């Protein structure tokens, strides 16, 4: 193993998307798995994506941004970026950019607020981007069982639904492993 992986120029960039409703644990997952303190960046929202709350005030548009939290893991041949993105469907343009070429997506679900996850599940389903669903254990509890969530969100039987305490690094890594495993399966047998 090289000791100076961080200065290598032959690393391949890889990314995955972490989506979910407000405070569903996106940033927590980025934080527990990233080798760096999670960073934040901003992208300006385009006019089209502003359609939902557009009130015709052109001057205010330039000030509207969407924040992305992200982290990084340096691996033997790649640098993996984890991008956390807001779950509301008016941010679809950002999901669009993030999902392009992504390994896959993780949908974080707060079982107390299931409807917040509909948009993300729908989006990744349509894109046929491999995704897993993670039920975040708040204070060690789940408001609904895995089966109940699968039914409520109409998640296909082949999509893994994991139950994890993503504050713990090993649990966070387990989620990433499951996503990549699922992505490999989907690559091997794309039709489902």
């Amino acid at each position, binding site marked *: 193993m090289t000791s100076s992986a961080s*200065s290598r120029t032959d690393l*391949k*960039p*890889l990314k995955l998307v972490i989506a979910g409703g407000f405070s569903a644990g996106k940033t927590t997952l980025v934080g527990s798995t990233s080798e760096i303190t999670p960073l934040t*960046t901003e992208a300006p929202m385009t006019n089209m994506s502003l359609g939902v709350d557009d009130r015709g005030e052109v001057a205010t548009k330039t000030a509207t*941004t969407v924040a*992305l939290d992200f982290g990084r*893991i340096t691996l*033997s041949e790649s640098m993996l970026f984890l991008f956390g993105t807001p779950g509301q469907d008016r941010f679809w343009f950002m999901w669009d950019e993030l999902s392009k070429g992504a390994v896959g997506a993780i949908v974080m679900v707060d079982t107390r607020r299931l409807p917040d996850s509909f948009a993300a599940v729908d989006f990744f389903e349509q894109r046929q981007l491999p995704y897993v669903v993670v039920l975040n254990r708040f204070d060690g509890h789940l408001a609904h069982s895995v089966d109940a969530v699968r039914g409520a969100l109409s998640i296909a039987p082949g999509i893994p639904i994991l139950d994890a305490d993503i504050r713990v690094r090993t649990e966070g890594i387990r989620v990433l492993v499951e996503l990549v495993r699922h992505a490999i399966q989907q690559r091997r047998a794309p039709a489902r």
Partner: protein
Amino acid sequence: MNSPSSPPSPERPRFLRQFALTQGRGQSIDRDLPLESLVTALPVVRQNWLTPEQRLIVEMCVGPRSIAEISSHLHVHLGVARILVSDMVANGLASVVSADNDTGPDLDTLERLLNDLQRL
């Protein structure tokens, strides 16, 4: 009438500054530069020819850093970071590695990634 009823946004001056940084261009020459693209600074002969932003990018990209990290570090929007990097690549100040995002990672890449993650 579209009167300026809303209070002046503190973001606005910053936006103008960002617009100036990229010499008025709203979009990068290389619009396809994904935000995870890895940027590495190339050896610079004359440091004092660099703009302050280029100097910051050169300093932070001794090893590969993503467009997203550059954006975060310089406190500029992703689009601005993209343009700054495109210009540096055009001027031989930096090199960029991007994946082919039209196809996504191939099976071999995914298997290596899985292997790596399982060893963490």
